[in-house]
Structure formats: structure tokens, C-alpha cells
């Protein structure tokens, strides 16, 4: 049976007086693609951001409960926050390349963690750019600014940047929403390959995308988890009224 990678327990998130996440309970399986589904504003992005504690950035945010990763609670552990975050690569809605050249975008995380040897960096950068199928397109212009790439290329570059620090988990927030169909497909295919080695959590509101790539689905509505389960069960035999309505396209 699958082992659990991330265990969310009694998770509550407040922004000031707003109650964003309400008592979230969930187990995210290892080396599978878990899709968090739900209408916009339901808290799915917030849930994703809790997992690597980006909610810390918001001065009014208050997070309580437990997030266990391999059994360790990242909300209360003494572990350095940067090491926790490094375990999780993040892919945002739109690509945000760092203000530096293509090579340094990928090497950034490595340099941050103290790997400075040129040869090593070169080797790793090439490896990860190949992994996201970007190497052939950029190998002659590694020192051009990253913003010169197309949006689709930028998103793959961001994926390579995230992978370069050797995370165990990939968190992706609607990673294809800004991309054209071809680039989206390329990213989706990449995820299908990557789940061999990584636990992947994807936020999306596209039902068909969820159906295509998910192994496990978490459906959220108004800050609560309504229903969760393996993908087939979820789509073919939903148990909750809300889920059925959503699958019929009743609300967005």
C-alpha cells in the first residue's frame, strides 16, 4: 500500500479575522500526483502555501494544527525553515524567473546551499535542464537573461530551478494556467514522469486536467475539505452532494 508523505491534521488558517482553512484533515500519498480541486477562492492555493510555510510571509496569517512530513511536524519542529522549504519545489501560476541569466536561475538554489564549484554547478544545471527538456533550446544562450525565454520555456525553467535543490515534493499552483495548450501538455507529461521520483501536489480548477493526471483528489469548498479519495472513485462515485454538483459544473 502507499505510504503517506504529507499528513495534514486539524489545520486552521486565519488571515486577520478571515477563516481561510477550516480544520483540514488529509493524507497525501508518496510518489503520486495529488490534485487539489475546487472553485476559486476555496482556499486551495492557501493550503498549498501552508505546506511550505509561505504563509509565514503574511503578517496577519495565523496557522495552527499539524503538518507532518514523513512524520515530523514542520510547524513546531526546530528544523531550519530553509531546509523545510528546500524539501519542496514550488511552481507558481505564472513563471517568475529570477532576475538573472538562465544558468544562474537553475544554479541559484545550489549556490544558496553552499555549492560553489563551477564544474559541479555546470553538471547539475545541464542535468536539470535536460530533465525538463529545455537543454537543447537554451544550451547556446545560458547567459542570456531568463526573461528573454517564452512563457512556456520560463515555466519549465522554473521547474528546473525547483528540482535543482533535490526536493522530495513538488508543489504546483495551477502551473499551466498561463500557458498555451502545447506548453501545458509538456508540463503535464513532465509531471507524469516525475511522479516516479517525487510526491507531487497540484492545485487546479480544471476538471479534465485533474482527471488526466491525478492519482488522488482532494476537493475543497469554502475552506473545507469536502471529499477526498483516489481519482477513479472521486470522479465515478462521488459521495458528497457538493462534489456531485461541482462535477456537473454547477459552480465555479
Amino acid at each position, binding site marked *: 500500500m502507499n505510504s503517506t508523505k504529507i499528513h495534514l491534521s486539524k489545520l486552521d488558517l486565519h488571515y486577520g479575522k478571515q477563516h481561510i482553512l477550516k480544520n483540514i484533515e488529509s493524507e497525501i500519498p508518496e510518489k503520486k500526483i495529488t490534485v487539489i480541486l475546487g472553485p476559486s477562492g476555496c482556499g486551495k492555493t492557501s493550503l498549498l502555501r501552508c505546506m511550505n510555510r509561505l504563509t509565514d510571509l503574511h*503578517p496577519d496569517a495565523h496557522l495552527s494544527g499539524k503538518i507532518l512530513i514523513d512524520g515530523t511536524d514542520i510547524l513546531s519542529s526546530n528544523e531550519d525553515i530553509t531546509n523545510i522549504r528546500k524539501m519542496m519545489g514550488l511552481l507558481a501560476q505564472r513563471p517568475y524567473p529570477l532576475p538573472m541569466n538562465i544558468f544562474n536561475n537553475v544554479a541559484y538554489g545550489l549556490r544558496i546551499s553552499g555549492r560553489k564549484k563551477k564544474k559541479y554547478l555546470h553538471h547539475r544545471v545541464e542535468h536539470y535542464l535536460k530533465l525538463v527538456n529545455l537543454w537543447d533550446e537554451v544550451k547556446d544562450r545560458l547567459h542570456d537573461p531568463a526573461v528573454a525565454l517564452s512563457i512556456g520555456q520560463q515555466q519549465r525553467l522554473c521547474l528546473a530551478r525547483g528540482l*535543482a535543490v533535490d526536493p522530495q515534493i513538488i508543489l504546483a499552483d495551477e502551473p499551466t494556467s498561463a500557458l498555451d495548450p502545447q506548453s501545458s501538455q509538456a508540463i503535464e507529461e513532465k509531471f507524469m514522469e516525475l511522479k516516479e521520483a517525487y510526491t507531487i501536489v497540484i492545485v487546479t480548477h480544471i476538471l479534465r486536467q485533474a482527471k488526466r493526471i491525478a492519482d488522488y483528489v482532494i476537493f475543497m469548498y469554502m475552506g473545507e475539505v469536502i471529499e477526498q479519495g483516489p481519482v477513479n472513485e472521486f470522479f465515478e462515485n462521488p459521495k458528497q452532494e457538493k462534489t456531485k454538483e461541482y462535477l456537473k459544473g454547477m459552480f465555479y
Partner: protein
Amino acid sequence: MRKMQVRLSRAMRNNIHGFWMVICLALVIILPVTMAAGLYWKSSVLLHENSLLSLVFSKEWKPISGQFGFYPFIISSVWVTMAALLFAAPICLLTSIHLTQYAKRWVLKVMHPVIDILAGIPSVIFGLWGILVVVPFIGNYLGPWLGKQVSGYSILAGAIVLAIMIIPFVLNILIEVFKNIPDELTEASLSVGATRWQTVKFVLLKKGMPGIVAAFGLGMSRAFGETIAVLMVVGNVTRIPTGLIQPGYPLPALIANNYGEMMSIPLYDSALMLSALILFVVVLIFNLISRYIIIQCDEKC
């Protein structure tokens, strides 16, 4: 019939209003041109007799004998401005990063009115504060400590007062710069394991660099033109300054101090208007460059 009349008057009001608008707009647009022309017209008398370059680089300032060398004043201005920027820049940069990246709610709540009030304080009040606090401090403590007998009225006093004056101005622009950098960039950097400070150092400063340069450019031109506060504490001695605790005599102070007698000595008024013209042009150029950088940056982002 009545209705027709109402229509007409409405249309007429619209026209009158439109006419007034165009006049006001024209006023705004021609104002800088008129200013430059007016100042040039007054200063051309002096420029007829001496070349601009010889005036700017001549060290002799003896209005009675018709010698108008601006060099000491320009150098004083440059010293005061640079020193002020040097003091203000790190404080503004650190504070703006603190306020946009780290600060808790209560700090923001305190700092917002503080910056606003500081920005609203008139320059004469800053000057008075300089006389009450900064000048005695330099004269009584810093000077003796450095082994020098000084009055305290000095380039340094001017620079400190100026630095405080431009802090709220530069700070507001810098806060705007850092706020305009998308949060996702910070998040991207953090999620590969960077600390907050590393993110600031490697990503935010780099991304915000054009804006930071522009903010300092605008701050510098503000400092360059500031008159009264500097005049009150800088000493006003016509001499090329040799050190920070020596008195100086910046260009704006020259204009403000001598307006009384300028009509009595030939060419004097022309020389002072030329100083104003130099100020105008220098500030305009700095502003233009900074604004250009900001506009370029806005379009790209």
C-alpha cells in the same frame, strides 16, 4: 423653446469650462519653458561677457569688481549633496526593506504617520533643529574630539540636516519600488531554500535596482536644490571646502543670501539668476534621467 435655451446654456457652460481648462493646461505646459527662458533672459547679461565654462570653473567671487566665479559654490553644493545622500541612502534602503519585507503590523502603523509627518515638516524647521542640535553637537563634541576648533556650522551639519530631509522622500519611492516586485519572486527564492536576507540580497535588490537608482537620483536632486535648511547651518563662507567639518557655501544659499543687495551691484542680479538657472538645469536633468529609468522599469514589469 425653453428646453432649447437650457440646452444652449449647457453647451455654453461646457464651452466656457473647456476654454478655461485649456488655458490652465497651457499654463502648466509652458511654465517650465517660461521659467528657463526668464532665468536665461536675466542671466544672459553676464553670459555675454563671460563664457559659462570660465564662470563655472573660476574661483574668484568678487561681485564688486565684477568677478563671478561659481566654483566654490558648486563644489560646496556637490559636497553637501553627496554627503547627505551617503548618510540617507543606507538608512532609506534598510528601512524600506524592513518595512516591505519584515515589519510587523504595529511597526507599519507607527511608521506610516511618522514618514508622512517627517515629509511635511517645512525646511525652516529642519534648519532650526540643525542650529539647536546638530551644530552645537559638531562644535562642542565632534570638533574637539577630532582636535579641531570649529563653530559647528559646516558642510557636515548641512549634510546631516539634508539627509534627514530627503529620507522620507527617498523612502516613499523605495517602498513603492519594493512593493511593485511580485511576491512570487520572493516565494520562488524562499522555496529553493534561501533565507529572507539572501532573497533580499540576491533577488529583490537586483530586481529593484533601476528603481533604487532612480530613487537616489531624485533624492539627490532634491538635496541639491534645498535651500533654507542648508543655508541656516552650513556656515556660508566663500571658500573651497577642504573637509566635512569646514563651512561651505552651496549654490542655493548663495541666491537666498544675497537677494537684498543684488540690485545695487552691476551684474550681481544676473549672476544670481545664472545660479538659479544652473540649479534648474541640473535638477531637471537628474529628474529626467530618474523618471526615465522609472518609466522604463514600469513598462517592462
